[in-house]
């Protein structure tokens, strides 16, 4: 199931970087179950995509993994250890970049936000590298409101990688930008994650994006969400927006993931108008 190439030679003693075990969560005192017994794991350096029908609880799952939300049941293990709070080697990029960047800080300061424990020289070095990696060195002294959407999201990305994480969580990060910027950002994220050998967990509703970017795809059911399929993506890297997306392997995978998700959406469709029973399945 997991790609062994990214693991160290000592497979038996290496813990998966992330292990989700039987995660359960509901809102409003149990009346609105969101997650039910979700379980999967992620290997070091692996790019994992999580897809599912809209509103199935993907973001809730991500927040539990990040340590921002306490699940009702089950555990989230980071390298075999359960954390109460977000562990220091985890970073997250949110969908709403204009709400997650600090408007009173410049790009440089935003990027360096999590690095307060370091001395000044080290912090500047890391911020410089992160900004260079995302292509924002020239805009370092601008403020978020002076940037385009794509640049803002790149700032958020720079902030995440400046912290030198080992696991990067992405919550529908490209949903709020236009299609062309989306492609640029996808390429950027893939390149950075490959270069940094960063384990990445991408939550997305865009199936094409999941197949294009990931090493493995986890498909969630609709609410209450559980894992219904775990699909390996054996497309070669580096991936190309044109060539990869036209390849037969890509199309097959896309078809498979799409059907899996659609299966989960089906029960929610409204019944025909001439149905005599009042109930919806």
């Amino acid at each position, binding site marked *: 199931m997991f790609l062994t190439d990214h693991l160290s030679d000592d497979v038996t003693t290496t813990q998966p970087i992330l292990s989700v075990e039987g995660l359960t969560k509901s809102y409003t005192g149990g009346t609105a179950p969101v997650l039910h017994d979700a379980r999967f794991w992620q290997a070091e350096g692996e790019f994992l995509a999580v897809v599912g029908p809209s509103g199935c609880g993907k973001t809730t799952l991500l927040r539990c993994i990040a340590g*921002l939300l306490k699940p009702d049941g089950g555990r989230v293990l980071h390298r075999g250890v359960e954390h109460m709070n*977000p562990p220091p080697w985890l970073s997250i990029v*949110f969908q709403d970049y*204009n709400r*997650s960047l600090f*408007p009173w800080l410049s790009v440089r300061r935003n990027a360096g936000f999590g690095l307060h424990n370091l001395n000044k020289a080290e912090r500047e070095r890391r911020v410089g590298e992160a900004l260079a990696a995302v292509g924002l060195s020239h805009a370092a002294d601008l*403020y978020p*409101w002076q940037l385009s959407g794509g640049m803002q999201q790149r700032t958020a990305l720079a902030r995440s990688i400046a912290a030198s994480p080992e696991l990067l969580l992405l919550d529908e990060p490209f949903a709020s930008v236009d299609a062309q910027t989306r492609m640029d950002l996808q390429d950027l994220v893939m390149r950075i994650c490959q270069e940094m050998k960063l384990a990445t967990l991408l939550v997305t509703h865009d199936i094409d994006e999941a197949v294009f970017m990931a090493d493995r795809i986890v498909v969630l059911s609709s609410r209450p969400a559980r894992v219904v399929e775990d699909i390996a993506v054996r497309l070669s890297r580096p991936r190309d927006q044109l060539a990869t997306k036209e390849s037969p392997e890509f199309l097959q995978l896309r078809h498979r993931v799409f059907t899996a998700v659609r299966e989960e959406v089906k029960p929610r469709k409204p019944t025909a108008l001439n149905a005599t029973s009042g109930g919806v399945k």
Partner: protein
Amino acid sequence: MRAERLGQRIVEFGGQALLLLTLMACWQAAAILFPAPYLPRLERIASSFWNLIHGELLVREVLPSAARVGAGLTLGIVLGTAIGLGIGYFRGLDPWLRPILEFLRALPAVTVLPAALLLLGSTDAMRVSIIVFGCMPPVLLAAIDGARRVDQLLLDTARVSGLTSAQTLVRVIVPAALPQVFAGIRVALGVALIMMVISELLAANNGLGAFIQRNQRLFNTANVYAGVLVIGVLAWLFTAAMLELEKRVLRWHRGWRGVIE
């Protein structure tokens, strides 16, 4: 383009000057035609005003008032902001404190004047205290509101970045709530001036309020009007200073809102 704007400004300014001159002319005409104690001529008001803003009178009457407002405002703002942000951030406190805060907000600050007089006597401590009492609630409530309204994503980012509660309060809540706090400060400024005048009208030996009171009793109406004008100038100065401070501190906010709207 620039010439056009300059021309516009000149016309505006001219209009304002004309209006002011007309009002002054009416006053002067009335003072000459219907002489009365409460309608002194402009030149007497001007001379009283001039005396008040320099020399001995300045030091004895104007500066104490300004100092009281300054001290009361500073204390009220600092306390209001610190306590308000704390209450807003540590949400557990709010339900307990809500009824008291709502009561304080509704209570007209001047009502505590007699009690303050009893407690602290006719001292500067009393006067500054009731200024603080008056201008703290607007800032406090604004700070609570500002802290509550901080975007959850900013708080999440802070948590994932490993900030402690205290660090989050200082590095995220304070800047994020500042626009709201400044709105409260604007209200507080008005209240502070009112409380200053009233406390001095009723219980003080010096200060502009006391000056006005004394001259009213002696029917020196020119001095009374001069005092009023000086209070107006003082209020204007404080407001201008506050706006300038706000402009600098909240430069990012104007840019940000400009894009959103």
